[in-house]
């Protein structure tokens, strides 16, 4: 394990400390707990607040989307671990501006338990909570059992669109509806080329031979749908795209946003080679690309590989996607 770090146990904490030092005008901790991250100008009066949370090791997910026009706060856990319900509650209290809070996070057992417990405490304190789970990873369960799917990179679209809805004044029901609608139209699938190593574990999360790749692998290295010899980029792009298209309620002449996301160690160059083929294939299906995001949006430490996300757009979703947003890690300008 080769990492630029100090004590493995302090990994997540030191990352957070570095982030506060680098972006003091944007982010601050609640009550000196670096794992409770809120926007420096929270609470924002009259705005529904949106909170996410989950394990560390996925930058810019999760806290990287806290900022203007996106999220208000984030409860971060240790590497690949859930935050505690107390931490979620601390963030909730700090960002709540009287119009309720949306919990928007990935479908993982530990996170669900802790967010649910926080939601109950919040309710006791008179804070209205809604919960929307991100379940975009098509490789993790068939369409019939879509509620069992993992949440992966597609969550960034949900953050973006729900965040725009909140900034535009939507009430809690409306912001919740937008998050749900976005996710109903969002699908992701990934491919892994090399594992990552938890700083405290010292052992890779899985192994792949030198010439192998795994389609459908999860962001913690959970097993995928097909392991085999590494294929040319164009074939990988085709395999991922076909799966997503088959799963989405898509029609010809549709409009989409595309995200080609690197998992941490894969160079930007390779992501653009993937995008090149994805774009051409969408064209063959007469599907228009309204916006392309190519880069690292949801990673797993130094895992190698990529994921492809499609968001099927209508006019409402397009408008919300194009609404300006800014965080230290993500910018949408008009």
């Amino acid at each position, binding site marked *: 394990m080769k990492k630029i770090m100090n004590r493995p146990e302090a990994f997540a904490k030191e990352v957070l400390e570095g982030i506060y030092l680098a972006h003091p005008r944007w982010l601050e901790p609640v009550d000196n707990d670096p794992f409770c991250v809120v926007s420096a100008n929270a609470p924002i009066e009259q705005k529904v607040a949106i909170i996410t949370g989950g394990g560390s090791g996925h930058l810019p997910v999760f806290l990287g989307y806290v900022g203007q026009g996106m999220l208000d706060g984030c409860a971060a*856990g*240790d590497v*690949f*671990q*859930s*935050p*505690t*319900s*107390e931490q979620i509650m601390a963030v909730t209290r700090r960002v709540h501006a009287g119009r309720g809070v949306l919990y928007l996070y990935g479908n*993982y*057992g*530990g996170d*669900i*338990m*802790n967010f*649910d*417990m926080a939601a109950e405490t919040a309710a006791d304190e008179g804070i209205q909570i809604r919960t929307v789970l991100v379940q975009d990873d098509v490789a*993790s*369960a068939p369409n019939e059992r879509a509620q*069992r799917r*993992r949440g992966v990179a597609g969550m960034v679209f949900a953050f973006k669109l729900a965040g725009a809805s909140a900034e535009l004044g939507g009430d809690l029901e409306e912001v919740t509806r937008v998050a749900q609608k976005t996710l109903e139209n969002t699908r992701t699938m990934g491919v892994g080329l090399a594992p990552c190593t*938890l700083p*405290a*574990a010292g052992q890779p*999360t899985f192994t792949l031979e030198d010439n192998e790749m795994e389609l459908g692998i*999860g962001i*913690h*290295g*959970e*097993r995928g749908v097909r392991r085999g010899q590494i294929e040319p980029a164009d074939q990988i792009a085709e395999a991922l795209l076909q799966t997503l298209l088959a799963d989405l309620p898509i029609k010809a002449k549709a409009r989409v946003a595309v995200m080609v996301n690197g998992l941490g160690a894969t160079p930007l160059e390779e992501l653009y080679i993937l995008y090149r083929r994805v774009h051409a294939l969408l064209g063959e299906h007469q599907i228009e690309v309204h916006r392309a995001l190519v880069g690292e949006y949801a990673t797993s430490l130094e895992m190698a590989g990529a994921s492809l996300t499609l968001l099927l757009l209508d006019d409402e979703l397009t408008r919300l996607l194009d609404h300006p947003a800014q965080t230290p890690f993500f910018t949408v300008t008009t």
Partner: protein
Amino acid sequence: MTTANQLARAIERACHKVLEQRDTLNTLDAALGDGDSGLTAEKGAQALLEYLHQTPPENDLGQWLDGAGKVYSRAAPSTMGALVGVALRSAGQQAIGVTTLTMPLLAKMLLEADQSIQQRGRAKPGDKTIIDALHPAATAFAAAIERGETPSVAQHELLEAARQGRDHARTLRSQVGRAGWIGERTEGLLDPGTVLFVTMLEGVLEKPATIGSNHA
């Protein structure tokens, strides 16, 4: 009957037993989950031992268990960590103000722990989780007490039911949690949650060589 001191020793033994099983739990979890069951169980056990040391149980065992649950889930924020915390807290709710735990009360507490985990985790028996060991164990223990068995017989049935539950769960397919994503491939694999529960129970029921242990 279990006094504050006995409860403390039982929890201590359970924690030490869990610490011994750290690597086994990690290995089991690596096969069907994310390989950290041992790490998070270790964090929980260490936090409990520290809590025990700083705040030994005294007059109100229920309050103490409630505190233990908070400490556990704060220290081990995984699925299992959250659920063990929930179980300790809801068992504690049954014993608020109580200074010694009777067998019927213990039975009630175990049943409550089972229910609270099912509710919080949105899982049921057969989903291949800790519930598949906890639920039959709690039920068997309550039935034995109901039938008027001696504590040692009841405890024996408790442990046996847990072990059988663990072994039966091995044949099942995971329906929830991370393991749920590779459902069919989990058949034949032990579920770390069931192993953790049996391990804790073995620690609690172990007859230690120290004084005051032989009328648990």
